[in-house]
């Protein structure tokens, strides 16, 4: 019986039960967002109604949600696997740029490969570029003790300028462009479009598959066991023979490659060129996705889709009601702040209570008051 239980995939209901504070936090975040909308002079029910219509009016509008979920799914997993092993990967933005650069270099060369091969080559090069980029903060964290958050954020800025340089002053830059961009990509590298007349490419589904793969990887493989052990107790992991430094670099590189894949997919699936500053906020949104999901890949699936609804619907909301489209990123941030704000302290006291009666919960709180 026990074995059977571990093989069960958690259902959505299960997630809601165990992740009660996430759901509560999101509700509070949406309410707080509504208050802000109200302050800006718009009826929040109208605004949220427009948002929902924007996301669910018809299949075409829902494809929009899916397209937007693609980088969040991949980036979210990239961050989540870091969270599971105790690393904060805040460099998804930079990794996406590197993935885009890799894709741009390959796909502007017109190698004349068959589409499937060409796309795979783009993936490969994009992930390789990002992986090498990610190895730098990974190495610095593991072997030099440099804080990975500061380091990856600095590298994001460097990646932005690197991309700007590539799309303005290199042979693959579009000459005399009104906005800095690369030459158009070869047709063969375009990701297949699934519904004619929309931009729904296979990217989101790659993201969903990756989520499932990582769920399996974390739970059912020795690699996942090692990763979780490192996240929970690095000292015990070291003592059990885990080379924690190498593992850190590996996790960072995997996270980077996922970010790179996200960037590649954005470029060859949606934009078909590499643009200057084409990643907007996705890096930090990925952190939000992973965090609301509690680092769980299935949770990433749910929260990435949720945030995509906010983002895709947010555009419609901006057009229909005049609320700024920045409002959706504000709502995302509010949701996360409420999720962590509602969650952390209670979770801790609950486990403390369980752990040892002696650990003494309530009494000290009274004192603090």
């Amino acid at each position, binding site marked *: 019986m026990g*074995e059977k239980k571990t093989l069960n995939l958690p259902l959505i209901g299960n997630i809601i039960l165990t992740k009660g504070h996430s759901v509560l936090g999101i509700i509070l975040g949406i309410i707080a967002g509504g208050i802000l909308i109200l302050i800006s002079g718009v009826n929040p029910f109208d605004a949220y109604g427009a948002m929902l219509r924007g996301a669910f009016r018809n299949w075409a509008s829902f494809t929009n949600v899916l397209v937007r979920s693609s980088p969040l799914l991949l980036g979210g997993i990239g961050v989540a696997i870091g969270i599971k092993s105790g690393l904060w990967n805040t460099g998804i933005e930079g990794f996406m740029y590197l993935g885009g650069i890799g894709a741009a270099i390959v796909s502007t060369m017109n190698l004349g490969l068959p589409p499937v091969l060409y796309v795979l080559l783009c993936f490969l090069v994009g992930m390789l570029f990002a992986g090498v980029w990610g190895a730098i903060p990974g190495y610095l964290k593991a072997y030099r003790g440099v804080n990975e958050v500061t380091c990856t954020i600095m590298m994001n800025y460097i990646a932005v300028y690197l991309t700007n340089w590539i799309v303005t002053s290199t042979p693959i830059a579009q000459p005399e462009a009104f906005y800095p961009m690369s030459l158009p990509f070869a047709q063969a590298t375009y990701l297949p479009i699934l519904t004619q007349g929309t931009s729904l490419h296979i990217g989101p589904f790659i993201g969903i598959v990756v989520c499932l793969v990582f769920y399996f990887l974390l739970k059912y493989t020795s*690699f996942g066991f090692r990763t979780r052990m490192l996240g929970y*107790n690095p000292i015990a992991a070291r003592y*059990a023979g885990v080379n924690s430094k190498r593992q850190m670099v590996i996790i960072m590189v995997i996270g980077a490659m996922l970010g790179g894949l996200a960037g590649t997919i954005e470029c060859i699936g949606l934009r078909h060129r590499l643009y200057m500053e084409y990643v907007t906020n996705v890096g930090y949104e990925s952190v939000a996705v992973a965090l609301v999901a509690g680092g769980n890949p299935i949770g990433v699936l749910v929260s990435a889709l949720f945030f995509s609804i906010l983002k895709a619907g947010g555009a419609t909301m901006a057009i229909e009601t005049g609320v700024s489209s920045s409002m959706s990123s504000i709502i995302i941030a509010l949701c996360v702040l409420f999720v962590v704000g509602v969650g952390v302290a209670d979770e801790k006291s609950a486990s403390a209570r369980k752990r040892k009666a002696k650990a003494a919960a309530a*009494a000290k709180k009274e004192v603090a008051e």
Partner: protein
Amino acid sequence: MDNKAYALKMQGITKRFPGTLANDHITIECEHGKVLGLLGENGAGKTTLMNILYGLFRPDEGQIFIDGEEVEIQSPSDAINHGIGMVHQHFKLVDTLTVIENVVLGLPTMKQVLDLAPAKEKLLKLCHEYELFVDPDAEVWRLPVGQQQWVEILKALYRDCKVLVLDEPTAVLTPSESNNLCRAISKITAQGKSVIFISHKLREVMEITDNVTVLRDGKVIGTIATKDATQLKLAEMMVGRAVEIERRPRAKVPADSEPVLVMKDVNVYDERGVHALKNFNLTVHAGEIVGVAGIDGNGQRELAECISGLIKPQSGTIEIKGKPVTGVISDPSFLGFIPEDRHKTGLVLDFTVAENLIIKEYMKAPFAKKGILQYKEIGSHANEMIDKFHVKTSSKDVAVKTLSGGNQQKVVIARELNPEPILDIASQPTRGLDLGAVMGVHDVLMQERERGAAVLFISAELQEVMALSDRIIVLYSGENMGDLDGDTADQAVIGQMMLGKRI
């Protein structure tokens, strides 16, 4: 009786924690200028009671009287204001600050802009008065543990405390430092101040205290004048049964027994650059328990960690069955290692019991095949271990942090010793366990000996080292002070060696 006679009286103190009654109507009385001993095993409720006194916990019931007046203590600053000084078992000092900064920390009388000169003067005066010498300008982390305790005591005296609480003060002291402490205590009481001395070491309580209150399971078992007490009587009150740990009978180790662990001229420096092991030599043979006695912090941790490969010695060789130790040994059939700190190194507290049982073998068949975990094998292995080592748990699938300390230790022991390693290292394996669990650990180690494993048993409790070891070595400031036969070793001799005397 008139409460005014007491410097401190705690009456009917009750404290409930979810699931346990930590203090059950406890009453203690401490007279002016006297030392009250508070005796009890770990978990008897001593520390909870003192945390209530110091305002860290609030009692559910009960009153506290100081000089006969009822007081309400809601925070440590209240306690300090009422003249209570406390030296916690784990020092509450800020390592990176200097001694004098620690002493004045939180003092409301200090001016906003610090002027440390008069404070230093006052501190030095106290140092001389109580013969507890420390350098006011030294950073605390640079001081030896004994002096850190002086800082704690001086900090309380500086605040002009009327009642000084010492929680297990001698656990970290060398015997000569313990003597200093005794002298200081008698000077403190001579001034009319009172001392509450918490310990589970009977001998000290007999020497130092005037009255003893014995706690067991959160209740007061009795209070007697020390002059009327005997060690045996106190021990019986404390545990409800005789505590003498008998030496385990055994056959002699055969003279031709094969050497398993051979350490030659090993030198280890710890992370602060302190020379933690000095030209250390040791051989442990198959079928033999070698006990390592010594006061905590004399190189025991480094000894265990360099054998298991967690830290690298700066020079010297360590070989296990002829193979040099070069990295972390995670081969469970080679080395079983029960680390000093279960929570930090021995277990992943958020993992389940089943997962904790395989954290060294998760990559190997039958637990993983081609990188895929075999939960069926892991589960049946866990059930087998739970039965074999009598781990009390509701299921193999609960997080190990929900288990009691003794059962957590059993999980560690099951994982480390079940693969029948040729060398066992048990580093303070009984620390923090109740007597029943301690005996269980001793049984396991004796079984390992019978099986033919080489066992290195490190413990700060001399009594258990003498009860279990075939040979005893004594560690003093990183040096091996000498080798004694377990059958004939004399406690007094070992005591001398623990102070650094070569015999």
